[in-house]
């Protein structure tokens, strides 16, 4: 088995302090849970500490020295993120607390919007069967509240969207199509452009949950065909507590606000208020300032490595893992079995052993994976399993860590007596 990546993983690993952790028995930590949350490089940790220790102040409102520094750092981070995703304008980048809030924001403001975008009884919202709960539940909530109907594209046995239904499920009643770019549960990379084209044909808005793709692939929002794109800082070397909603400016400017409060207003009177222009209209209260600074440092870090290089490494390690997994008897991959059109999360089932028990045995050997439904219960049900074990990779994942996973899976089968 050969492994080849354009990335010098050993050099990258030195930037991530947590990768130096060892187990009580001295064996190294093998962190294969990056689709859940990524580790943070020193550069990000230090940017946050430096912000708090040297420049901390509230933004926009303060005109003193620290206030100017923090405002420049915060709005500078917005510039960096706009450039990172190819946003035509920095005003299209809205900071939220995570992807989930970004998706809820869109769902709620569409429920409250005037025509043409407002959700009304008889309207339809289309999602897919492989969505994360954060792209299911908000739409269930708003369709219930507005009387609109929730529909979904189903998934085939290989974990791909069944596009044969595309033209019937997305039809002239469809107001919104919201789908995941790269599935966190299956790893599938969806043909967003194709779905978006159909959605736009019928005048529907397109929301893309890019929580897994922005960290892994070069994503250019101006080419994706989306009207809104959501992603989350903690999965892309950035801090927790920050997410991003990108939206087309004209659209954002036509929509009502989500949360009310400081910074999102124009003029407040007791009897009524007017609202600021995007992005501030959607950023009520003190924003995640230090977190934006940290996310800015994260995109600097990723850009310095190069997102094409990150993607190539992710592809190489995923291909390597899929090949090596095929060696282990009684292990079945849930989702695409090759690395084509695929991200770096691999869900697997060890026949006869519950995913909890799989991950427990792996953890005892320092191999950190996730077991459960990965906040995507419907797609687990689609594959007839309550849960899976998921290994997921990032730019700091070394092929030896995949080897440790494979060794661990052999041990799992031995320990629970299912090895032949």
């Amino acid at each position, binding site marked *: 088995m050969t492994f080849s990546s354009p990335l010098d993983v050993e050099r990258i690993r030195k930037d991530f302090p947590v990768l130096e952790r060892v187990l009580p028995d001295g064996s190294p930590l093998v962190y294969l849970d990056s689709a859940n949350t990524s580790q943070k490089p020193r550069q990000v940790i230090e940017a946050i500490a430096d912000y708090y220790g040297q420049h901390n102040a509230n933004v926009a409102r303060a005109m003193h020295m620290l206030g100017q520094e923090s405002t420049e750092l915060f709005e500078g981070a917005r510039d960096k993120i706009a450039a990172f995703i190819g946003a035509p304008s920095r005003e299209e980048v809205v900071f939220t607390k995570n992807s989930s809030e970004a998706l809820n924001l869109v769902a709620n403001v569409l429920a409250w919007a005037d025509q043409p975008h407002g959700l009304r009884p008889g309207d339809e919202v289309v999602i897919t069967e492989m969505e994360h709960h954060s792209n299911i539940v908000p739409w269930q909530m708003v369709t219930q509240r507005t009387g609109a109907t929730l529909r979904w594209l189903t998934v085939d046995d290989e974990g791909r969207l069944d596009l044969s239904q595309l033209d019937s499920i997305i039809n002239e009643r469809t107001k919104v199509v919201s789908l995941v770019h790269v599935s966190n549960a299956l790893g599938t990379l969806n043909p967003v452009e194709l779905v978006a084209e159909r959605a736009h044909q019928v005048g529907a808005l397109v929301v893309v949950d890019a929580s897994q793709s922005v960290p892994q692939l070069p994503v250019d929002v101006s080419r994706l065909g989306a009207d809104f794109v959501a992603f989350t800082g903690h999965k892309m070397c950035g801090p927790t507590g920050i997410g991003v909603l990108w939206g087309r400016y004209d659209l954002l400017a036509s929509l009502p606000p989500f949360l009310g409060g400081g910074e999102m207003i124009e003029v407040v009177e007791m009897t009524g208020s007017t609202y600021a222009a995007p992005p501030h209209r959607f950023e009520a209260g003190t924003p995640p300032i230090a977190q934006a600074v940290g996310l800015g440092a994260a995109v600097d870090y990723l850009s310095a490595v190069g997102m094409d290089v990150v993607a190539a490494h992710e592809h190489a390690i995923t291909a390597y893992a899929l090949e090596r997994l095929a060696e282990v008897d009684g292990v079945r991959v849930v989702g695409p079995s090759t690395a084509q059109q695929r991200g770096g999360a691999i869900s697997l089932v060890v026949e006869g052993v*519950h995913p*909890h*028990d799989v991950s427990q045995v792996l953890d*005892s050997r320092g191999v950190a994976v996730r077991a*459960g439904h990965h906040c995507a219960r419907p797609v687990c049900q689609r594959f007839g399993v*309550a849960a899976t074990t998921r290994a997921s990779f990032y730019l700091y994942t070394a092929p030896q860590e995949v080897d440790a996973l494979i060794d661990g899976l052999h041990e799992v089968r031995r320990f629970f007596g299912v090895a032949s």
Partner: protein
Amino acid sequence: MNLDSLYEEIILDHYRHPHHKGLRDPFDAEVHHVNPTCGDEVTLRVRVGGSNGQGVIEDVSYDTLGCAISQASVSVMADLVMGKPLDEATKAYDEFLSLMQSKGQLEPDEGVLEDAVAFAGVSKFPARIKCALLGWMAWKDATARALAARETPRTNEETA
């Protein structure tokens, strides 16, 4: 963490050969509990007999979908409470709950818990405590419902 302190031989035995598994009639109450983090599920039935002064757990039957810990735990629990007066069963429940919350600091009372003492190690694995408790919580809930149903006249087919 040391695997053997979690997967005691007794636990692996119950997991491989669960006792009292499979839903049975008659029963007084049936509940369905889920562990939302992992998707583990248990459906559990309880039949409470005995005179009014003192109930007796006549039968516990169940169906589960879950890990070794949750499956073994419900099996051990069924063994332990079946045939016991209600107060003794409840005492075992309380003792098991304390054991799970003890972070490995409690010496379990083997007189009360019998095979369930094997779960002492689980309390050192916070993520697995919910697995071990799933069946017990379901039993507690089902028993409370069965008792509540006894207060009101039985009219449904369950009592047929």
